[in-house]
């Protein structure tokens, strides 16, 4: 293990351990997915035992949950919120609307592929995913974090121009301040 090139140092290991076990979640409650979250967080499924708890604002959050379809109007806000979050940050796409457009595949006002606009670490499929699958999604994200592979934010920084191009294709009058963190 010590000779492995990909092995984590002890500091990284501790960091990743704490990051994975303490996910402050900002639920961007679009679409129908928002209603699954109360069930996920309350007594029957209890996501808090995994260290997942709600955050009130993007400044405090680690994890952005996109719980459904995004119209171009909400996409603007999602990008804004995502850029306000502090590194390291993760995104979970929730339901088939974020994966391929779902039932909004031919809507003139709804984006179909979330990961063209912001980097998505984990997709949870289903329409809607039940709390079990949401918990499974959290688990998957945790294993990615533990392995140090949940690097969506780094990808976003590297390929910023590509993401910007995609975003600007949809958002005609670019309203955001330039990428600044």
């Amino acid at each position: 293990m010590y000779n492995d090139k990909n092995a984590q140092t002890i500091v990284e290991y501790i960091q990743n351990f704490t990051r994975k076990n303490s996910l402050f979640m900002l639920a961007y409650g679009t679409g129908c997915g928002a209603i699954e979250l109360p069930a996920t967080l309350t007594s029957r499924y209890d996501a808090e035992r995994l260290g997942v708890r709600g955050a009130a604002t993007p400044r405090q959050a680690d994890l952005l949950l996109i719980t459904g379809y995004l119209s171009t109007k909400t996409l603007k806000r999602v990008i804004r919120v995502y850029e306000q979050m502090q590194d390291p940050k993760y995104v979970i796409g929730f339901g088939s609307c974020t994966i391929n457009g779902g039932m909004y595949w031919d809507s003139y006002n709804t984006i179909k592929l979330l990961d063209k606009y912001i980097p998505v670490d984990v997709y949870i499929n289903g329409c809607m995913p039940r709390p079990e699958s949401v918990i499974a999604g959290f688990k998957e994200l945790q294993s990615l974090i533990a392995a140090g592979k949940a690097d969506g934010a780094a990808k976003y920084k590297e390929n910023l121009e590509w993401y910007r191009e995609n975003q600007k294709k949809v958002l005609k009058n670019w309203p955001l301040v330039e990428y600044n963190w």
Partner: protein
Amino acid sequence: METSLIKEELLAQQLQNAFENIVTEAVRKDTVFAYASKEQVSSILLYAKEKLGYKSLAHMSCIDWLESDEFELVYIIWSPETKLNLFVKTRIDRQNPEMENMDMIWRQLNTYQREIREMFGVEFPGFVGEKEFILEDWEDAPPMRRDFDTLEYVNDTFFEREGREDKQDVRERIAKRSGEEIPDFAKKYSRE
């Protein structure tokens, strides 16, 4: 039409007496249609509101009659006394769609007119309202017009996940199943 439509007929008659060049029809229980010209609509609505007690504006909507090159505007109003719905319908030119601004009669028409302006491109001269309603920064044709090709727009604008190229046109199949004929204007959108 077994049930008697006395109230409805009465209303239709009232309107008929009050206005010239107006076609009224008691279509079913609780519902009366009134077809009028574009210029008459405001006076009919005012008359119905002030004289007949149709105080509540239930809805205003727009229908795109691509075949006859017209938009149909429908104002649905309701009276708490007679409990009747009055549909005031008018047709306007589709090429240069303009309608009288009537948000002074019912304030809530403001919202409906904004929606119709944005979605169908019907102009209301003198109408002061927020420019945008739901869409932000929309530059294309008004999206609810039937000649706006949604699919083409979607294909141009949004990305598509690979693996969904086999999607089928359901409209065609539904039309075939119920034995309807697809009209000519719709055929150009057909994918087969």
